[in-house]
């Protein structure tokens, strides 16, 4: 079974920590969903307000593994420096590497992504690249030393689900040995279940939970859907067929004409 740089996760749902109505709701959502990994970020700290310190206290309290991101970085240099700072602050070699190439879609810049991944792997990071379903970029990321790939389902925060199922299926088929996580764009638990049914090893999302009317309940829903999809893949689903087949045996039916 695929692990995450040597770490085996029981719960394959990873949650972002942003956009929740309150820290309390975030904490409750994470707890109820039983997630083991949350994504975090970095921002400028104010010596007076010390917001970052309060958030850090909350995260430590949750006692979860953190996956720091390089959200908002548009250059290799920014992403690398952000990753370096994140490693020191969060004391983890894990980094969700984002090199954003385009503002409206927040599409990854595959060129910068590969370059940054090479640098960070050389510095001992365990890189979780936020990428697309592009097979060649995937090949280069794996060559660079990435053992986890995180293709998008749809643009971040869009909630559209899996825009290119063919591409995601193809990526899974081409990299049987690599841990694959659908990251971003999911809106509903059925999207998450479908990703797992395609053979993905996990799902990472934030907005669909944080922006739901009831984030805590939605977190639980996604957690169950991810597990459902994982089990389904393991249980070897039936092949779909174009014609009907009676489930109730016809043999021995009473004649009541």
């Amino acid at each position, binding site marked *: 079974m695929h692990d995450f740089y040597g770490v085996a996760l029981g719960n394959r749902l990873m949650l972002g920590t942003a956009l929740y109505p309150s820290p309390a709701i975030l904490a409750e959502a994470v707890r109820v969903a039983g997630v083991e990994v949350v994504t975090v970020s970095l*921002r*400028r*700290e104010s*010596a007076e307000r010390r917001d970052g310190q309060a958030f850090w206290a909350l995260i430590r309290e949750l006692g979860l593994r953190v996956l720091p991101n390089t959200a908002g970085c548009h250059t290799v*240099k920014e992403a690398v420096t952000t990753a370096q700072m994140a490693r020191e602050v*969060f004391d983890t070699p894990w980094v969700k590497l984002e090199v954003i190439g385009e503002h409206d879609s927040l599409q990854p810049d595959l060129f910068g992504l590969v370059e940054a991944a090479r640098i960070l792997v050389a510095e001992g990071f365990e890189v979780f690249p936020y990428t697309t379903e592009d097979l060649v970029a995937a090949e280069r990321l794996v060559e660079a030393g990435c053992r986890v790939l995180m293709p998008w389902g749809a643009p971040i*925060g869009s909630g559209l689900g899996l825009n290119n199922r063919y591409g995601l299926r193809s990526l899974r088929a081409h990299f049987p040995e690599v841990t694959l996580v659908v990251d971003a764009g999911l809106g509903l638990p059925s999207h998450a279940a479908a990703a797992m049914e395609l053979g993905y090893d996990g799902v990472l999302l934030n907005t669909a939970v944080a922006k739901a009317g009831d984030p805590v309940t939605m977190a639980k829903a996604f957690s169950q859907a991810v597990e459902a999809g994982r089990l389904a893949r393991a249980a070897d689903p039936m092949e779909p067929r174009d014609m009907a087949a009676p489930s109730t045996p016809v043999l021995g039916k009473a004649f009541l004409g």
Partner: protein
Amino acid sequence: MRIVLNGKSREVAVARLDRVLEELGFHGTKVATAVNGQFVARSRRGETALGEGDRVEVIAPMQGG
């Protein structure tokens, strides 16, 4: 000496990065630092002298997706 801290100009009395952080009220905080776009590890703050106009970033944990 004036430096740029997190994008704002600030007057500081000392030059060593660790001292500057203390002077600016960051003692006891979980933060990482960069000077002029380069990461400066905690362990190296003591040996890092700032100069006039240096851009210092002091960042901390934050919500992220």
